[in-house]
């Protein structure tokens, strides 16, 4: 029998369709269809200035929009030959880890709720909501922040932000501790998760998996360790790996990664240097407002940056960050004018959908929901 799961199903968050061929309750073969959220992101990018794309890249992985911002900005900065300021480097690292925390909280909370663990869900989204409010305080938005800028950040931290951060991290320990207590040794949970959706390490590499899913199979690959960018080379952290590559390992790898993120944020709070958050480079950063009002050069500069955008030298560049889901890469091509010739996103969710059948085939129909939840497919970046 053939059963359509999705695209409009509460557990296929972000609209995806899984066509499952069943033998009784057992899934024999699945065909995953994506594209229901395709909105022509890459086409749209080709008719705006480089700066105008930042709100668009927010909407790729909308659970951790800041990581998209920073990965995109770094790709453009590499092509322009810009080195960001030390304060910006540490702040971007801090915000990346904070976003990863929010993203993993969302993923774990959603997949627990789908198994009926409503209490654990509420604990996790409570702490996520503290994070959203707190990020809104720094960036002005709850979900899609548009906080990165080519050459820096939109603004520095508001007063008292780090104090509130310390409070939230204490509350995080409390709430996540309760979830560990509820779930880790829960018989029902283990029965649904252990040995379900098993992925071998060789399969994971062959099907292009990166991020927590690859690490859950026991492969300790993490771009933050392997090709350190931003300030990661100065931080002390571990790369948690799983043993079996099943749903339970994916849950646990994410939980452990959140602890590592918190550990990194604690270090970064003490390392933050003083100084400007944006480079002093008139090719991409707006001049000081006071100067725009008083001298003609700055006025012209401001006008040119807003109307024509930063002029990126001709060439192409690929840069990747370890996003919450895996390798998020931007491949950009510039023809030297103010608008991108091409912006391509290597979105981890899209690649992960390609090999999803390796985790779904051979298990029960009811296992599709927890397994799909543990992949953390984000429609925004999968379908673009």
């Amino acid at each position, binding site marked *: 029998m053939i059963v359509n799961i999705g695209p409009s199903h509460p557990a296929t968050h972000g609209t995806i369709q899984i066509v499952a061929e069943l033998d009784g309750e057992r899934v024999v073969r699945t065909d995953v*269809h*994506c*594209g229901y959220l*395709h909105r*022509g992101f*890459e*086409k*749209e990018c*080709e*008719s705006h200035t480089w700066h105008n794309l930042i709100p668009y890249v927010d909407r790729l992985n909308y659970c951790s929009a800041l990581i998209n911002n920073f990965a995109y900005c770094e790709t453009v900065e*590499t*092509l322009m030959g810009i080195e960001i300021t030390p304060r910006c480097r540490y702040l971007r690292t801090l915000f990346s880890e904070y976003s990863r925390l929010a993203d993993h909280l969302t993923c774990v909370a959603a997949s627990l709720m789908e198994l009926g663990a409503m209490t654990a869900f509420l604990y996790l989204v409570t702490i996520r909501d503290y994070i959203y409010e707190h990020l809104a305080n720094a960036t002005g938005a709850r979900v899609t922040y548009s906080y990165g800028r080519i050459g820096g950040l939109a603004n520095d931290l508001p007063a008292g932000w780090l104090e509130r951060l310390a409070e939230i991290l204490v509350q995080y320990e409390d709430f996540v501790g309760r979830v560990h207590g509820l779930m880790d040794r829960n018989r029902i949970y283990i029965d649904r998760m252990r040995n379900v959706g098993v992925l071998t390490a060789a*399969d994971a*590499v*062959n*099907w*292009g998996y*990166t991020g927590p899913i690859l690490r859950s199979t026991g*492969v300790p*690959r993490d771009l933050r360790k*392997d*090709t350190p960018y931003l300030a990661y080379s100065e931080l002390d952290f571990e790369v948690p790996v799983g043993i079996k590559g099943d749903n339970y390992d994916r849950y646990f790898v994410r939980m452990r990664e959140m602890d590592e993120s918190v550990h990194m944020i604690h270090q970064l709070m003490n390392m933050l240097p003083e100084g400007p958050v944006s480079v002093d480079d008139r090719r991409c950063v707006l001049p000081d407002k006071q100067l725009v009002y008083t001298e003609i050069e700055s006025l012209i500069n401001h006008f040119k940056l807003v109307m024509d955008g930063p002029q990126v030298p001709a*060439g*192409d*560049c*690929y*840069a*990747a960050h370890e996003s919450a889901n895996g*390798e998020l*890469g931007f*491949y950009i*091509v510039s023809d030297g004018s103010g608008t991108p*010739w*091409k912006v*391509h996103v*290597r979105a981890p969710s*899209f*690649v992960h*959908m*390609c*090999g999803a059948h390796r985790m779904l085939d051979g298990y029960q129909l009811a296992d599709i929901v927890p397994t799909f939840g543990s992949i953390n497919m984000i429609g925004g970046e999968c*379908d*673009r």
Partner: protein
Amino acid sequence: MNTALLESLRDALAGDGREASIAQGLVVVELAADALLATVGKLKAEHAFDLFLDVTAVDWPQREPRFDVVWHFYSTRDFVRVRLKTRVPADDPTVDSLIGLYGSAHFMERECHDMYGIKFRGNPDLRPILLYEGFEGHPLRKDYPKRLEQPLVPYRK
């Protein structure tokens, strides 16, 4: 960034009609379309490029041949990336498929076929993936108008 490693890779990959260089911390190899499978086989077998990251195309309508097809690979042993680039003409935009070497090539080749109309010889499943059955044209080609819509169900007046 391991410069010595990148240089040795560049030297190993140059020759046989391939041009290799180093740009922004990765090795860039420009090659003829028919040398693709042999080069990727060598990358995977001899240099441990086991992770296939990405394939996409770049459209240069004024240029002949018109398309660049671009692949990215990553080595989980050496932590380096390599980019392969080849040029294909508009009247026969065909390259070899990599699905025999990397499972992850399936969807990415389908996407590239959707968006640019690049044909991947040997990939039997090039159904639309981000677009839908019956969609005409290839939206990321520069001659596809951005505002052209092809609704499956006519809009209500």
